[in-house]
């Protein structure tokens, strides 16, 4: 099944460009999402490892 699918492609370049576009869109999307992320949520998340109170410090 894959064989038919792949053989119908025009050339390798198109394939490459599509993959690169997927990546760039994904990357830009993630960046925008991160910029919009709320500060208090970030503080909450980054403090999760430090919450554990069972520690003995030496």
């Amino acid at each position, binding site marked *: 099944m894959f*064989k038919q699918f792949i053989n119908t492609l025009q050339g390798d370049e198109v394939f490459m460009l599509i*993959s690169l576009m997927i990546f760039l869109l994904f990357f830009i999307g993630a960046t925008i999402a991160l910029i919009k992320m709320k500060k208090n949520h970030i503080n909450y*998340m980054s403090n999760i*490892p430090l919450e554990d109170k069972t520690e003995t410090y030496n």
Partner: protein
Amino acid sequence: MQADKFYYDNKIVRDFAIATLVWGIIGMTVGLLIATQLFSPAMNLGNQYTTFGRIRPLHTNAVIFAFVGNAIFMSVYYSLQRLLKARMFSDALSKIHFWGWQLIIVAAVITLPLGFTSSHEYAELEWPIDIAITVIWVIFGINMFGTIIKRRERHLYVAIWFYIATFITVAVLHIVNSFQLPISAFKSYYIYAGVQDALVQWWYGHNAVAFFLTTPYLGMMYYFLPKMANRPIYSYRLSILHFWALIFIYIWAGPHHLLYTSLPGWAQSVGVAFSIMLIAPSWGGMINGLLTLRGAWDKVRDDVTLKFMVVALTCYGMATFEGPMLSLKGVNAIAHFTDWIVAHVHVGALGWNGFLTFGIMYWLVPRIYKTKLYSHKLATFHFWIGTLGILFYAIPLYWAGFTQGLMWKEFTPEGLLKYSNFLETVTRILPMYIMRSIGGAMYLTGVLVMAYNLVKTAKSGKLVSNEYTEALPLPVLPVESKREFWHRKIERKPMTMLVLSLIVILIGGMVEMLPTFFIKSNVPTISSVKPYTPLELHGRDLYIREGCVNCHSQTVRPFRSETERYGEYSKAGEFVYDHPFLWGSKRTGPDLHREGGKYSNAWHYNHMMDPRTMSPGSIMPNFDWLLDQKLDTTTTAAKIRAMQTLGVPYPKGYDAIANQDLDKQSEEIAANLALDKIKVKKDKEIVAIIAYLQRLGIDIKNKN
């Protein structure tokens, strides 16, 4: 709301810690042994079970899957429970995971010296062990996701994402690179051949580095570094960005291991492009780690665990800068096949994986034993001798790599190779090999000191097997508000995370591999290339058994310096019957792809018995047992049938008569050896390996 009372399982953490220490010492000791073999062939200890070719895979498997593997599990079992405020899902699964993994390692320690190997680097273990690895890995996954499901913390901290990505990607890599056709309990052939097999292997090999040595360690860094410094990670945003970027980009970069080979050019270019991009997410992780210590550098002066973390992150930064650089075609042309690569790998392994593991162990062991570290002085000593060990290891090898890489390419004004004898380029770098083993010995000394220190620490306290804690159960979620941020939703949903990670890593692998598998023009066939004769096929399997591929490549790159030295450069069509491919990744000895017909049968016979009689100063081990051991021809039919199944065009029914051809060919070789006054029975293994070596690369030679 009433808080739940429960216990963290520290015993499993302790067990994995012991395994980390024990296998670390064993793996590094084997490493030191093979380092000495490279300047003193006597260190091969005169028997087949301890020759370089067989125990080099033992070293790599022991340090990667036993030392680093157990360190990953130790850290995951410690941090996962605390980040999720839940005990591990099932104590029984934890135990099965622990003992299963150790049994797999024991199986590797037994089978690799016996010569049972698939020849794929870092995936040498034969098919029954591959199946065991799959089962145990799935058990680890069930235990991890079970814990995630019963968690008391709604959001998954970034360390857990790295663990999830590790779990799913290693599973995919392992399965795809283990498609083998078994012919007996410990022998199988890869279903892929030649170029395709090479592509799959290095897609796997590179991502074993990415998803076994990098992503779990980044997860560990994101948990333990904030704990040690007692401050949150520098930028949580950066950690998310570099997580997605890292897992997306890494999966594409494999072909940079195959530059200038007969892999299609477009695949090489894709590999280079993504390798260069990799520097961004890699350095994102390093910078995030180092900046976490901003304003806390005074702590680094006093706290030995932080010292280890800083060197680990620095080495990570160096190795991930060097990686993209080595992927540039111009640099790769010189560096590939030399000790430069070995140095590069060890900066990552000794610095990043080793030191991060040590830092975590110094921090963790006193905590689960409710005591203090036995000796800070010894730990500081370990830090310094380890750091010096890395320098003494890496610098001589960089030097050796540059020297040899340039010597291979140097021409005289008349246009001839200046060092036409390969051996000259080897004897030149032997002093560097000696220095490197001194560096390795220093590093190992540090580890032994750590083992003593940690055992003393454990003895001074008592293991808190079950650590008491309390946490509020998760409240039932209110109906989700539509305005909630999408990434926040993902952070709550481990299965979505798993599926997203899977999609992200599959894109790269599929784009690279599918065209090479399904577009015919990517692997042009050559009509003069014929399947191996039965005797040659046996010889090839002996070549695999003895691990020749660890020191000899079988791919001539299209450079004048290589075509002058070895002959015509390698074409994709020459490898179509090679299950598995044997291109190799290091030239401790010369390339063998055009070896056929270069020397007489008698030369090969004497060279195998004692390489120094033919090439004085050679560092190749003796393979004298090949002269005495009888070739097992009972498997011939099964081998031919397996090859037929994989598409090698032997005539129908050939399996039944293959041994007749085998006899005929071995008789000819024995008769030819007799002319040189060498008496050898035709049924010895040496005859088969000579047949194979004399066949190498001649399909194209004969045509010309």
